[in-house]
């Protein structure tokens, strides 16, 4: 009786392990995609110019 129960549990445990491994891998890949890279390209020309009082009050 016990041997028969162990025999039916084994494939179930394998399935659970595989599902857990697949979810773990998916999470890892999602985290990598989320964290790596950058959100755009910096401007190629131009720059910042400090504004004088005349610029601000004209």
């Amino acid at each position: 009786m016990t041997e028969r129960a162990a025999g039916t549990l084994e494939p179930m445990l394998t399935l659970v392990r595989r599902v857990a491994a697949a979810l773990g891998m998916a999470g890892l890949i999602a985290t990598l995609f989320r964290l790596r890279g950058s959100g755009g390209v910096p401007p190629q020309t131009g720059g910042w110019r400090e504004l004088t009082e005349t610029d601000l009050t004209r």
Partner: protein
Amino acid sequence: MRIALAGLGTTGSHLARQLRDPDITEIRLFDIDQQRIRAVRGALDVRVSPRSGAPDPEDPPDVTVLATPAGGHVQLAAKMLEAGSHVVSISDDPDEVVGLLALDGLARSVDRSLVVGAGFCPGLSSLLVRFAADQLDLVEGISVSRAGTAGPACARQHHRALKHDGRDWRDGRWELRRGGSGRDLAWFPEPIGARDCYRGALPSPILLQRRYPEARRISARMAATRRDRLTGRLPMLRKPHRDGGPGGIRVEVRGRAGGAGPTAAVETLVYGVMDHPSVAAATVAAVVATRTARGQGPPGADGLVAWAEPGELLSELARRGIQIAAFSGQLDPAPTGQTPA
């Protein structure tokens, strides 16, 4: 002129030192830490009344400045308005900002001003938006980005903001967007430079949309590191810095100049600031508080975007050391705020 200042954290302490108008006759300082009150009091050369607890509605000052951590501003603002004091709040919590804006009717009924979000961002950022928008005939899009934090309370708010949904104004309605999404590379004035910015629970769109409901898009983002995003959903893992500066603001306003019609030229104006957020927020709040005490603020509850003559106010801030800059040159092909999430 009598001013009450509640909260002497990093920004509040700077704020007290920035209250240096010759018309100020008394500054009342409120904080739970008496030692902090004594330290700030020693640095001021006007009559200072150290107080404990909260500002007293029985003896209202001309203006009450709320620089305490987010939470509690709404109740105190209502009490002080009813007592006849103008109120300036530097809260950057979106729910609290909504609560403060709801006091508009009360503020108008007593003919007082309630200035909402009078700090770094919102605050200085709102002035820059207004300055840019005043040069356009029709505002179509506004994008606000910020980097850096002020004191520990601000750093905690930054941490909270990243894990809560942000509100974007898109085509006439509000959209809730997940905090930490919508990565966008924003180019701040040097030495901050390029920083990846993300959506979060930020109050700027709420304040700006009241002024520019015709805009198709209004969004706000905050700079965050990979660690901020990775640990955003967890409690803060270590004590925040005493000052999270230097930081920056970048506002981008798109619209039409030379008429509001579809044939009018599309223009994009970009302004920025690089400073320590605590110092810049304190300077903005001090200047605004002094002007509000003189009755120069618009009646009712609103942000600094409602203040006319933003150039004149920015000019005073520049005289106090805040460097305001304009970006000129070619922007990236996908302008900030137009990148899909």
